C-alpha cells in the first residue's frame, strides 16, 4: 500500500509528514510534508518551514512510508455503513425542534 505523499521516486532523503499544534488545547493538524535525513532534522526543518510566523507550539513528524491509509479505490464500500443512517444526527429529530433546551 502506498503512503499519501510518496512519489515512488529516488530521493536522497526520506519524506516526512508534518503535524502542527497551533496552540494549547487544539489537536495537531497536518501542515504538509518535507524531506529530512532523520527524525531530529525533520522536526527542525518543520520548525523552519512551517512555523516561521509562530504558527505552532508543538510539532509531530511521521515518516510518510509509515502511514497506512484506506484504499482510495474502495472508498464507496468502505464508507458505506453510515449512508442512510441520518438518525445518527440530531437534525433527524424534527418533532422536538421547538422545544427549548433540547
Amino acid at each position, binding site marked *: 500500500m502506498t503512503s*499519501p*505523499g510518496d512519489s515512488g521516486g529516488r530521493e536522497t532523503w526520506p519524506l516526512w509528514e508534518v503535524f502542527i499544534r497551533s496552540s494549547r488545547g487544539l489537536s495537531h493538524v497536518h501542515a504538509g510534508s518535507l524531506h529530512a535525513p532523520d527524525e531530529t*532534522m525533520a522536526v527542525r526543518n518543520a520548525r523552519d*518551514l512551517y512555523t516561521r*510566523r509562530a504558527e505552532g507550539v508543538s510539532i509531530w513528524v511521521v515518516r510518510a512510508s509509515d502511514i497506512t491509509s484506506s484504499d482510495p479505490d474502495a472508498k464507496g464500500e468502505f464508507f458505506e455503513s453510515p449512508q442512510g443512517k441520518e438518525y445518527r444526527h440530531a437534525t433527524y429529530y424534527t418533532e422536538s425542534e421547538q422545544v427549548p433546551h433540547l
Partner: protein
Amino acid sequence: MTTEQGMTDELSPEEREFERLIAADQRVEPRDWMPDAYRKTLIRQISQHAHSEIIGMQPEGNWITRAPSLKRKAILMAKVQDEAGHGLYLYSAAQTLGIDRETMFEQLITGAAKYSSIFNYLTPSWADMGSIGWLVDGAAICNQVPLCRASYGPYGRAMTRICKEESFHQRQGFEILLTLMRGTEAQRAMAQESVNRWYAPALMMFGPPDDESPNSQRSMAWNIKRFSNDELRQRFVDMLVPQAEILGVTLPDPDLKWNEERGHYDFGELDWTEFHEVLAGRGQANALRVAKRRKAHEDGAWVREAARAYADKQAELAAQSERLAS
C-alpha cells in the same frame, strides 16, 4: 471539463467520477484517478511555480548584504526565506503527482524546466527591491489568489499558505518605494527609473494574450485556472494606477487612461517579442540564474549525503544495541 451527452456513456467509471468532481467544482486528491493530460499539466505548472520561487531568491538575495539598514536586511532575509519555503511547499505538491524531487531539481539546473521569466531581469539598484515587491509580487499575488481554488487539492492548499505569507512582500516593496519617493530628488529618480524598468515585465508575468495562449482554455475547463491571462492583467493594472498615484510615480505607458465605458483602464500594447526572447533564454540573467542554482545544488551535495550517512549509521547502531539487549 464538459463532455457531450453522447460521450458520457463511453466514459469509464473513473473518468466519469473525475468529470463529476470537476463539474461540481470539488477537489481532486493525489490518489484519485485523473487524465494523464491533467496530471502532466499540473506537474508542469506546479514545478515551474516551485522553480520560480527558488530562482526568485536570487535577485533579492543579491541585495541582503547591501540593504540600507539592519531592519531592511532582516526584512529581506525573511522574504527570501519565505521564497525558499514556498518552493518547498510547491515541490511537495508536485511530488504527490508522481514526480520525484531529484528529477525536478535536475530539470531546473539543466535548463530543461522553465520558471517565471521575470527573474531573468537584473536588479542593479536598491529601488529594484521596492519594484519587485510592489510590481512583481503584486502581479504574483493577483495570479495566485485564484489558484487557492485550483481543482487539485494539494496545489490549492499550498497556494493558500503561500498567499497568506506573501501579503507582506508587496507591502514592504511599496514602502521601500514610498520611502524613496519621500526622499531627495536623486532618490525619487532612482525609484522612478526602477518602476520604468519593471512595469512592463510585471504585466507580462500574466502570460501571453488570451488568443495566443491555447493551454489556458483547457486549464480553465479543468478549474486549475479561474481567470484568463488578460482578465488578470486588467485587474492588476486597475489596482496599480491608484497605488502609483499614492507613490507619486509615473507608470511608463503613454496609452494608460481610464475608460469610462469599460469601467477599466486602457493600456498600451506590450512588447511580446521581448517576452519570447527572455523565455527562449536570451534575457539579461538566464544563464547566471541557472548557473548559480546549479552551483548551490552541487556544492550542497556532500552535506545532503553526509546527513544521510549519519542517519543511516545512527539507525544501524540503534538496531545493533536492540539486538544485543534482546
